[in-house]
């Protein structure tokens, strides 16, 4: 065979060679698929695919129990958060309304509204120190439809309820009743560390049997804000009255 004839033979296509190449490629793919199947099988075994059904059920039950416990805890936290939100809302609204006016009568009405609507007080008394005397003005007397009982039945309060008297002296909020006091709470009213009066709760509404923990926040708020709101309103009213008097005098002097 000559060199030329050898070259021609090599250039001629060999029948079936392309089929062999296709077969090789297919075998490669089969090998790849076999590896994937093997991997999946190994994973399934590792994750309990071959474990007993009971074990799997137990694991799922445990997970469910944990999830239920989490839901219960979240629900409990949600209730706590709602309560906390309610407490903060009460405090915000009470503070806002106490300082929303410079009219002493309106401030006094707001103190009464807080006591009735937010604390659930049925009978209470607001005592305010008189400027020029040692006794206390009974500025508010609420819920005593058959008349005030001693020691609150006079024009002013001169003492007589031991818990209230001590609170008016030392400025500490006290809860009762005690053997020597019928008051449920004696709330000191302060302006810059000076005690200018007290709010005395004597009876709660029948459907509000006791003062709750959240009520303590409101009592503290009243102690700190009620007197300063009242003080500011009274000061403004006095200055306003003086201003009007001066304006009238000026008009008179001008002959208007």
């Amino acid at each position, binding site marked *: 065979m000559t060199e030329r004839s050898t070259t021609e033979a090599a250039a001629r296509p060999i029948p079936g060679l392309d089929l062999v190449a296709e077969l090789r490629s297919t075998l490669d793919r089969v090998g790849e698929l076999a590896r994937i199947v093997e991997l999946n099988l190994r994973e399934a075994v590792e994750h309990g695919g071959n474990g007993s059904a009971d074990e799997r059920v137990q694991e799922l039950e445990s997970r469910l129990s944990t999830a239920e416990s989490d839901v219960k805890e979240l629900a409990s936290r949600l209730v706590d958060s709602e*309560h906390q939100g309610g407490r903060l809302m009460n405090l915000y*609204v009470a503070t806002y309304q106490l300082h*929303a006016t410079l009219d002493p009568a309106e401030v006094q009405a707001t103190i009464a509204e807080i006591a009735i*609507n937010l604390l659930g007080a049925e009978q209470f008394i607001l005592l305010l120190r008189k400027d020029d005397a040692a006794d206390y003005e009974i500025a508010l007397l609420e819920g005593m439809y058959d008349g005030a009982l001693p020691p609150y039945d006079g024009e002013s309060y001169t003492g007589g309820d031991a818990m209230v008297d001590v609170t008016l002296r030392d400025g500490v909020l006290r809860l009762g009743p005690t053997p020597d006091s019928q008051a449920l709470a004696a709330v000191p009213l302060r302006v810059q560390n000076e005690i200018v009066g007290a709010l005395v709760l004597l009876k709660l509404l029948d459907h509000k049997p006791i003062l709750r923990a959240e009520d303590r926040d409101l009592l503290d708020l009243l102690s700190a804000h009620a007197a300063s709101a009242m003080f500011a309103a009274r000061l403004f009213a006095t200055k306003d009255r003086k201003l009007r008097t001066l304006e009238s005098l000026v008009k008179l002097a001008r002959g208007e």
Partner: protein
Amino acid sequence: MQPRKVLVVDDSKLMHKMYEVMLRQYPLVYALDGRQALDRLQEHADIDLVLLDINMPNMNGLEFLAQVRNDGAHRDLAVIIISTEGREEDTQRGLEAGASAYIKKPFHSEDILEKISQLEKGPSA
């Protein structure tokens, strides 16, 4: 269905502020007594819910409710009484007068929101 407008009837400005903070998602209209509340109902045809106090000057809550229920236009208006009157007979009287629900003061905000939610879902809920 969510109320289009809520009418708050209470003589306490503190309570008006309370509802304003609590019910931010609803448009509110205010009245200080029953008479004002009747006027508000005339002025705002889209009021779907009334939060009603009982003890008020001029016209109290029960008198207002009686007028509303006698008026054909507002016969189905949802009314929640919110009052310091907490005896069983007070609740009974309020419900018999036509209130949809009765809540005692002092209340937790969740109580009001839950009742409104129940009313929104309708009687079948």
